[in-house]
């Protein structure tokens, strides 16, 4: 294991990107920080800039207006960076499949920038906070 991956797996700092979600996944992500789940215990922290982030938590379908911003955000992150597609919309555009303003899903847009990006999927509408934690743990443990 390279030292980069080793250090990535400890105290993951995440940046949260909403690309056109209904807010549910986002609220559940913020919920992770609050007393019941409290992932900050493990050093997982929401940060204010993609340049500080080890992982991107992407929610939402990726709308036409959000897609260029998502590409730019991914370019700004330090590599390696894990992209988590949180929720059914981010994984597969979900119920919004085929809508005119939707250009996603997330993996399609990220792969346009970096074909070798590490992308993990957490399905659910919204995924329960436990599912999100479990998804992050699983993804990090197979890196």
């Amino acid at each position, binding site marked *: 294991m390279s030292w980069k991956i080793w250090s990535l797996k400890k105290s993951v700092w995440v940046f949260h990107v909403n690309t056109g979600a209904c807010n549910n996944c986002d609220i559940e992500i913020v919920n992770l920080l609050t007393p019941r789940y409290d992932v900050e215990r493990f050093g997982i922290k929401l940060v204010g800039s993609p340049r500080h982030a080890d992982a991107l938590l992407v929610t939402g379908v990726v*709308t*036409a*207006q959000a897609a*260029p911003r998502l590409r730019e955000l991914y370019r700004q992150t330090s590599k390696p960076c894990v992209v988590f597609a949180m929720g059914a919309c981010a994984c597969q555009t979900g119920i919004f499949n*085929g809508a*005119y*303003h939707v250009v996603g899903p997330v993996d399609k847009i990220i792969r346009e920038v970096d074909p070798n990006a590490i992308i993990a999927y957490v399905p659910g509408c919204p995924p329960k906070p436990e599912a999100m934690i479990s998804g992050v743990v699983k993804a990090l443990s197979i890196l």
Partner: protein
Amino acid sequence: MNQEELNNRLSEIKDKLINIEQTKDSRIFLLCEAENSFAVSKFLFEDLALRFMIATGIDSEDCFEILYHFSNDGTGCVVTVKAFIRDRENPSIESITPFIPAAEWIEREIYDILGIEIKNHPNMRRLILADDWPEGVYPLRKDFKR
């Protein structure tokens, strides 16, 4: 304002309307041509002090319709001004934003998604569609194909 007063006051603008339809007590439709919609909306908002809820743009088969929904909160009555725009080639309607600031966004949205020109709108810029959305493509028109 109770229901009876409302009905009486609405008859004051009868000459600007094609018809008044009432599906039930609390649902009133005022049908008018597009050129009268400004005056009718102004009357409802300023003289009757109804609350502006929203406008709906519809692509009907032979014309465009703009529905202005007003609410009389005392009775829960919804008064809808249904304005018909007969010209399908260059559809346009007078903006109501100058006296109802709340209508600014919805009129910009109607322009974005239906391509109906809003005359005298104080701030006509793209609102709801992406920056790179092509000009002249209106997603809520019936002939729109993705």
